[in-house]
């Protein structure tokens, strides 16, 4: 079991690199769906006591994070700009290099935190850190508004991974509330995206520069 978890976490790390080098939005959405699936099923691997409620909640999370949110974004932007370039501020090669440095750095610093819960799973903490920072990177380094929303979701996945693996005090009703907030947030962002497209005929955030000092 230990090996299998670390194996899929390696795939997540690779998918981050892939998303940094990718210029196409559909590919990015698929990467996010994969990451959503993986972070949702982590509780099955790390030996938390699984109650019926816990299993039900994990499945709901899987459905929303792994399928619901990516599908919603995909459908919402299908008419808008699917297949377009992500308009990088930082180029793809530089992004890849930054991604590599990020992964190496995260793996290097993680053992120094000395967290007792994760010593069996060497890659859990690095993956969570990489997801959070990579999400922020996409937010800052891409001008395409859709890519920014995807960055936000990636960051949110990383935070969920930290929460689910390092805290034993799972209260499903509360976590469900958080999930609902994230879902509603993504929906509102998608509506805003469609309106940006309608108003500006593009989703390049460089157009959103009229309000400033």
């Amino acid at each position, binding site marked *: 079991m230990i090996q299998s978890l670390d194996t899929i976490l390696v795939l997540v790390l690779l998918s981050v690199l892939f998303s940094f080098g990718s210029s196409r939005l559909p590919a990015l959405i698929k990467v996010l769906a994969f990451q959503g699936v993986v972070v949702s099923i982590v509780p099955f691997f790390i030996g938390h006591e699984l109650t019926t409620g816990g299993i039900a909640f994990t499945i709901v999370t899987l459905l929303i994070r792994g399928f619901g949110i990516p599908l919603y974004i995909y459908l919402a932007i299908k008419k808008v700009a699917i297949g377009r370039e992500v308009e990088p501020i930082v180029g793809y090669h530089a992004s890849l290099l930054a991604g590599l440095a990020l992964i190496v750095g995260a793996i290097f610093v993680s053992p120094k935190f000395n967290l007792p819960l994760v010593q069996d799973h060497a890659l859990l903490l690095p993956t969570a850190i990489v997801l959070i920072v990579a999400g922020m990177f996409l937010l800052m380094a891409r001008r395409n508004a859709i890519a920014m929303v995807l960055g936000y979701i990636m960051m949110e996945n990383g935070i969920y991974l930290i929460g689910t693996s*390092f*805290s034993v005090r799972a209260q499903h009703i509360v976590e469900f509330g958080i999930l609902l907030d994230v879902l509603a*947030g993504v929906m509102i962002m998608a509506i805003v995206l469609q309106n*940006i497209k309608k108003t500006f005929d593009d989703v390049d955030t460089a157009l959103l520069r009229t*309000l400033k*000092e």
Partner: protein
Amino acid sequence: MWGFMVEIVILLPFAMGLLAFFVPQSIGRMLLIITGAAHLALSVGIWIRRPAAFLDTYFAVTAEGLLSLLVISLLFFLIAIYTRGYLKEQQIPSEPVFTGSMLLFLATMTMVTLADHIMVMWIAIEATTLASAPLIYTYRSAASIEATWKYVLICSVGIALALLGSVLLALSMDLGGVDVPMSFSALAGAAQRMDPLWLKTGFVFILVGYGTKMGLAPMHTWLPDAHSEAPSPASALLSGVLLNCAYLGIFKTHKIMHAAGLGDFSGTILIVFGLASIIAAATFILKQTEYKRLLAYSSIENMGIIAFGTGVGGLGAYGAVLCLVHHSLIKSSLFLSSGNILLGYADRFIVGTGRLAKLMPRTFVAFFGGFAGISGFPPFGIFFGEVFIIIAAFRAHHYVGVVLFIMSICVIFAGFANHVMRISFGASGGSVQFQEKAAMVWPQYALLLTSLALCFWMPDTVSQTIMNAVQTIGGGF
């Protein structure tokens, strides 16, 4: 009946908000006022009876929450009266969405004030972002979609950091072997056993996260855009009470830090962010060309003052809470007056206004009175709050901080006064097409008079509640 009171006061505006999406415009406007009145009555009831919540793991009635709840309730009621008049003057697209979102916004803010569980607090604050986003997009213009985008994205990302901070608090509980519910009140008792390193890290993330929402520099960039693009009643709510809600999240975490003996650490960070906000406001307020952005920067200044006072502690914390209450009352009245100015001149730039004292005398009284209050003229409460904070800062030997504080406030006053003089007495080309109806000036007067009355006669129960709130972070005389 009192057993469910805390839940009812949250669910009532929520249900009314959902209803408002489906009823005709005139009923929707009345629904705002009726819900506001009922909410106010319930809040006063909760203030008097202090009932325990039915879901007591997640909700609790606390001193700081009660103060915010009553302020929110009073403000919403008065703003609802104004909104009814405003909507008669100003056509807005899809009005049911606007009224519905206003009520949902009220429900989520009420939930923030009553939340006791750390994660429920997060859920409620994120929900305020989602409920208020449609308000900013009300006018459907290019500028408003830009403001909405910035607001939703920056605040969601910021608040995601606060979620990370909350998760780290849970981690610090696990590492310290603390087995109590994850509520602010339970944790304040067990804080000493929590792991200090992760507690500190968690606080920093929570401060940055909720600080984004509160408008602390350098995370404030969404605030002037959102406040200037939203319709004035919505701006009044955003500035008057939404910022308080975010502050409440920081305040309660600071409470845990204080109980853990790490109050100096969190206080210092609050002082730094507070000063940064005041200085940022001083820099930008001088060259503002739009009056609603001017008011927005003044909000950033006041949030900075409040964070600074909270960080200084002692008398400063008492001053900070005074500033919090009075800023809500005065700033919301200013935003409502700015709505009248916008309707009158049909121009959002300061150069497009002028001779307000002559053309719209009743709005002028409210606007100028609000300006005097917000800039810290005695006898308004902000003056006392700022004096308390300055005294406390001197007592705590923060000499550099207090010098920066006083200088920035002077600069802001000069810049603000310059613009207000231009609006009130400067030359104006045109005439004004606006009847100052009673419903659109009295709410402002009522807000200012409440603020004024609280300076001369503060009921014992109010001052006692403020004392109870600030004592938990080591504040008081």
